């Protein structure tokens, strides 16, 4: 931990957080297999930081996001938010938590009721949490629209009248309506066109400044994550393999997977000038991860010990953790 972050108390803190799913269960006794979607992850989110969570499909990053916001029940481990243990909190106990922690999803249109105006939808959020009353509601709605860069007249429109980028702004407005401290955003820009994506990425940055927000930003696009995050955690098959301050992690990855991931991204500036590390094969099924280090089956540097002993996530420098027997220099 770096000096400044270790002094602060984490806003959200997970300890050996685990989420298992059972798949293929039938009436037959002993059938069904356990999928360790999130495998004993420990993680802290500090106030005012943006923690980027990156990984490919099957890495468990979305599941982790849903566990952190308690949209999923947690199989085991401990989760503390703002000083309170919310690992097992029920619906009633979670209501005040939801006021302080919100989630934004990839496809906002799926969560917008097509028959309700934006105004009614946002006003309901304010009412449920008793945030504003009477005339103050409308003032707050207009304020929200302004925050996310939409015209106030749009309040009286229906979701289908908006483009993808605008719908994502509405999704952000709804999350902001309760005045949260922490926003967990799950692939919030990956469904958008490049030119619109940049606008929404900028919006995230502006809101953080204005409202002093803390983000957990989940994405598969490493360039976007680099742009928005102060700190990054790289996930592979349900585990965090490396964390670190953004620039340090991108400029000098210590885990072979991070290195391969970064080298795989096609870059306009790098035409013909870059050595790409081509990983063999694909991510193994989370149902049967390799023994030992989960990355050992694809790691170009794997040795015998890697296939037998799973390396723990260990601090190797200030603010830098890596789960590897032979971290890269």
């Amino acid at each position, binding site marked *: 931990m770096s000096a400044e972050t270790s002094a602060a108390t984490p806003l959200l803190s997970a300890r050996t957080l685990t989420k298992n799913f059972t798949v293929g269960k039938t009436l037959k006794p002993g059938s069904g297999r356990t999928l360790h979607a999130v495998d004993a992850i420990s993680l802290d989110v500090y106030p005012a930081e943006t923690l980027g969570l990156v990984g*490919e*499909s099957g890495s468990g990053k979305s599941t982790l996001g849903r566990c952190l916001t308690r949209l999923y029940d947690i199989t085991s481990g401990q989760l503390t938010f703002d000083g309170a243990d919310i690992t097992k909190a029920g619906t009633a106990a979670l209501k005040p938590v939801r006021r302080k922690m919100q989630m934004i999803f990839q496809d906002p249109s799926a969560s917008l009721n097509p028959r309700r105006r934006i105004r009614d939808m946002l006003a309901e959020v304010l009412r449920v949490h008793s945030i504003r009353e009477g005339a103050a509601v409308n003032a707050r709605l207009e304020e929200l629209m302004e925050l996310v860069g939409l015209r106030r007249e749009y309040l009286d429109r229906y979701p289908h009248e908006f*483009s993808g*980028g*605008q719908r994502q702004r509405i999704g952000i407005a709804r999350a902001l309506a309760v005045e949260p401290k922490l926003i967990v955003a799950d692939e919030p820009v990956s469904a958008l*066109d*490049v*030119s*619109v*994506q*940049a*606008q929404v*990425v*900028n919006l995230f*940055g502006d809101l953080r400044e204005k409202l002093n927000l803390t983000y957990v930003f989940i994405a*598969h696009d*490493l*360039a*976007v994550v*680099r*742009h928005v995050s102060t700190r990054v955690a790289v996930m592979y098959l349900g585990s965090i393999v490396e964390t670190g301050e*953004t*620039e340090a992690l*991108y*400029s000098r990855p210590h885990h072979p997977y991070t290195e*391969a*991931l*970064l*080298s*795989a*991204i*096609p*870059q*306009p*500036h*790098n*035409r013909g*000038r870059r050595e*790409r590390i*081509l*990983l063999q*094969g*694909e*991510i193994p099924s989370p149902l049967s991860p390799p023994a030992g280090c989960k990355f050992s089956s694809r790691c170009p540097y794997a040795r015998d010990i890697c296939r037998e002993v799973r390396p723990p996530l260990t601090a190797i420098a200030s603010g830098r953790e890596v789960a590897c027997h032979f971290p890269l220099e």
Partner: protein
Amino acid sequence: MEQKDKPILLDVDGLSVSFATDRGPVRAVSDVSFRVHEGEILSIVGESGSGKSVTLLSLLGLHDRKTTQVQGAVSFRGQHLLDLPASRMRAIRGKEIGLISQDPMTALTPVYTIGWQIAEQIRAHEAISARAARKRAIELLGEVGLSNPGEAVDRYPHQLSGGMRQRAVIAMALSCNPALLVADEPTTALDVTVQAQVLDLILRLRKDFGSAIILITHDMGVVAEVADEVAVMYAGRIVERGRTEQLFSAPMHPYTWGLMASIPPLSGARLPRLRSIPGMPPTPETIPPGCGFAPRCAFVQPACAEPPPLHRAGDQAALCIIDDTERPALRRAALPLEETP
């Protein structure tokens, strides 16, 4: 350039596509022209609604003939594709022009094994026994890097991972040794590490099979890595085209500048803000009559209400009013972090 000496394989001249809608015809692609030389990779870049997929489907005759009107001339090895009867077009599709679809999850018929589907294509074009077709399918699956082709040939699509399925789709597209491969966002649905493998495969196949490739994508990084020539599409028009090195080192069109500036860099200093293009891409119904990009352009002038002129600089060309003298200054303003290698 050595590429220029190679014969022209596909020559598209003035292609326009309109759809019949309830409110009359809507033009999705206007006056698109490009050439593909043998063995060359042309990349068409654009956002959703730019008309890049529509262009490709109408080339292949895969559009809905009832609702779509295609104008212009498309010449492939001396044959005018748009005028060919359906049966002649079928003989070309799959044999001389292969298609690689975007989403390997849905591009294969779920109820047949991949070997069956590859053999089906081979037998549609060649008089060959089922056994020989199957043997070819196994060879092809090996070519595209499936580790156990003898086993994979009998697998159903759902039993393969996304990357393996995309390899199977590529094997199928290659099965009749096509002179032209058309790839519609072939890596968009894949993870980064798998995308790298598939791009590598495409480059290797170009070498081994000598096919020309039209690669449709929205990802400037992919373009930069694999394409020889680039065409940037916006609002149904090709707004800029040129050789990849030139286009990336000195882009001419403000839309290309905006597209490049929208992508956060992976190295170097982090920017406080991304330079985004305001507004959003138009739908075919809302394309303005003059320059399609004018409503979002930072350098818009009154003259942009008229169709913009084509400016050329060597092999590069752009549809924009900005002339050669003022362009470098404007480009520096729009793309401040332009690297000088």
